[in-house]
């Protein structure tokens, strides 16, 4: 069993509803977080993301200007100066399975359907902190591995093609990004 030192984590919360932001802030502070930054739309969140370099992003889906889905897509730019790897938890009133698939394909790490609960939020945060998934880059996707289970049974059109692996050592994108901030 693990416990998270929330006081070492920096959060960015993005929700256009001030009541929900208050709820989230209350929950995160109660968990022990000290650094919680808030944005009320996707554009502001993106600016704050570059400025504060949060460890975890918690975002709503439906928002004015650009929404949480677009925010996730903008964060998940492998060539961007910022950190494209930060865990993104999408907290949303959308509760249909197809929405989960769309969010997953935008690079969202965890999906949490409202109504929010302390337990649900804590578990999602614990999961992104304790069990990070490798990232996958294809022509059309960059984000956490969308497979949670390994199975060779899938033979559909989106099956990844294997082949011999070529391992390339790269300098850390995050370190590069932080050195430019």
């Amino acid at each position, binding site marked *: 069993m693990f*416990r998270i*030192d929330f006081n070492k984590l920096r959060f960015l919360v993005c929700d256009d*509803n001030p009541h929900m932001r208050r709820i989230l802030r209350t929950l995160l502070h109660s968990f022990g977080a000290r650094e919680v930054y808030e944005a009320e739309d996707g554009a502001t969140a993106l600016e704050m993301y570059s400025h504060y370099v949060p460890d975890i992003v918690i975002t709503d889906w439906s928002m004015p200007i650009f929404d949480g889905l677009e925010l996730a897509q903008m964060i998940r730019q492998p060539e961007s100066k910022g950190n494209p790897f930060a865990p993104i938890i999408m907290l949303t009133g959308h509760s249909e*399975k*197809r929405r989960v698939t769309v969010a997953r394909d935008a690079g969202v790490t965890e999906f949490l359907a*409202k*109504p929010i609960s302390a337990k649900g939020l804590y578990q999602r945060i614990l999961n992104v902190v304790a069990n990070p998934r490798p990232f996958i880059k294809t022509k059309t996707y960059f984000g956490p591995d969308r497979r949670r289970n390994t199975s060779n049974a899938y033979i559909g059109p989106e099956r990844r093609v294997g082949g011999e692996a070529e391992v390339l050592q790269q300098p*850390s994108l*995050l370190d590069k990004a932080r050195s430019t901030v």
Partner: protein
Amino acid sequence: MANHKRDIEIKAFADHQVITQPNPLRKVLRRLKEKDLDDPIARAEKALAGLSGEFKNWMTVEADRLSAAHATILQNGFTHENCEELFRAAHDIKGDAATFGYPSAGAAANSLCRIIEHAPELAEVPSDLIAHHINAIQAIVRERTKLDTVSMASELSRQLRGVADEFLMKANRDRPEHLEAILAPSLVPGD
């Protein structure tokens, strides 16, 4: 905040790369000790309960925002912006109401969201159907403190959902992708 150097390893395959790195947040994890009685979830639930005195006001603000969005539509028509605002107001209630102690208002708002999302033309939805949803949400919020209204609120939102679903299934009989979405089970139990 975790802040340490990370070495990224990239394995290149024919049509994709697998990128792994040491867990950048591992330093914020610590193993739970036997004597550790601290319960962050209970602490957060208690803090949330401490906010509950404000929930009635918050819910009133949300319901009034929905009514205002509807009034704008009645006055200025079903423009894209007006419909967006109506959806966002209903969607916020759908997501927040149960947390604020108004699950039936959340259910009615969910039903309204489904109408806005899946009706082929919002302007052609019977005006009473939209108005009844909004009036029901207002009534549930207003009468929340009366114990005997709880089951009535639940029945009201259930009936609205039934009428809305019947309308949506007829309106979308030639739109299979919408029918599928309308009939798909929700991820949230009790939706």
